[in-house]
């Protein structure tokens, strides 16, 4: 699979979790792709932590507005129903638990739900932006990431090695290999991509996976 194929598979699967009327924050990068696969007939409202509720698609060429960007600093558009607010109000909304679902990339997830995704090893620290607030307080935190590093090392671990973004915050992980829930007992694989076996998934995972008795094929694979 190409990297792009993996990313699309992950984004499509997460999009199936969306429900009509959900207010959702999509992180920068892969999570942003989820917006492209919102199922027909449901309306989802995207929050951007720089102060916007109701983020629309990228603008048409020539309609870019420098005053209208998302948290990734990309030009976006507004929708009927969009609202704007300041950054303190935006994080009050986030911290107050009003965001039903946040989707974020991950570098490492531990079996207890710890997440590390803000310091890239060997690079200068750029800052956590809004990630620590989002992971601490979203009602459901989905991590959208490739199952292993480019070097093929597992990213779902016993314990995170990198500096943490949040402690025990991850609810769900979606990779190109499957759909995983973080539970008090450990990480449960609930869906597996048709092109992998449970053994292959475990081999690419440091944490010991619990195979759900209702293990299903992952939709879209």
């Amino acid at each position, binding site marked *: 699979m190409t990297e792009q194929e993996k990313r699309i598979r992950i984004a499509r699967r997460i999009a199936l979790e969306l429900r009509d009327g959900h207010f959702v924050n999509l992180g920068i990068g892969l999570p942003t792709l989820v917006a492209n696969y919102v199922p027909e007939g449901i309306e989802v409202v995207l929050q*951007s*932590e*720089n*102060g*916007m509720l109701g983020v629309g*698609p*990228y*603008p*048409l*060429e*020539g*309609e*870019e*507005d*420098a*005053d*209208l*960007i*998302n*948290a*990734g*600093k*990309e*030009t*976006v558009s*507004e929708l009927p129903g969009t609202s*704007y*607010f*300041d*950054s*303190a109000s*935006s*994080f*009050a909304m*986030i*911290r107050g638990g009003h965001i039903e679902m946040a989707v974020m990339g991950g570098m490492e997830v531990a079996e207890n739900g*710890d997440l590390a995704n803000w310091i890239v090893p060997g690079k*200068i*620290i*750029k*800052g*956590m*932006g*809004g*990630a*620590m*607030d989002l992971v*601490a*307080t979203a009602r459901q935190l989905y991590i959208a990431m490739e199952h292993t590093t480019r070097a093929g090392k597992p990213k779902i671990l016993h314990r995170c090695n990198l*500096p*943490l*973004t*949040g*402690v*025990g915050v991850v609810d769900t992980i979606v990779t190109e290999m499957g759909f995983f829930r973080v539970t008090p007992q450990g990480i449960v694989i609930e869906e597996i991509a048709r092109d992998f076996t449970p053994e292959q998934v475990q081999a690419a995972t440091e944490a010991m996976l619990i195979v759900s008795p209702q293990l299903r094929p992952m939709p879209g694979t």
Partner: protein
Amino acid sequence: MDKTVASAAAAVADIPNGATVMIGGFGLCGNPENLITALFELGRRNLTIISNNAGTDHEGIGVMLAAGQIKKMISTYVGENAIFEEKARSGELETELLPQGTFAERIRAAGAGIPAFFTPAGVGTVVAEGKETREFDGRVYLMERWLKADFALVKAFRGDRWGNLTYRKTARNFNPVMATAAHVTIAEVEELLPPGGLDADSIVTPAIYVHRIVLGAGYRKPIERRTVRKG
């Protein structure tokens, strides 16, 4: 009552060396361009800048960074600036990085007279180091303090001579909250109106928070990531 100042240069002239200055904006969006340029040209040094980002190498706060005017930056994300990296690595620039919601709320708390509050963001991370933690209703929180400044430089869309301000789209971002948290708040606007020119129900920053107001000019509004879709 007329808070209008004739130029950005006049508005920032009394900011001294060593001042703590909040600067509004998210990336290059909603930056007080005229006031940043005026502060750069004023040449003050040893500044502590409280701003979500550090501009880019050639835009916004990045220009002051390059000129060595900034001693310390308090920010949440500084990933768009190679000069920042270099100066931070060499130790020439002191940096403090905060979770964005904590950063915003500390500033709001300063404006709202709240010396400390508790937040769940950053518990168990490096952000918690040296900070008091406390459990409420079975969950652990960090105590965070207010964050004040000597001056705030903010950008609004429209303003009136009393100092009332409104904002446009996501250029609002940190501007309204920083406007409340400094000893002296200086606003620049794209349109300056007489009092009554703004809809009273739609004013975002009431006049009480703004000490000086300048009509900005020549807005460049650079776009960091121009993303478009096919028609």
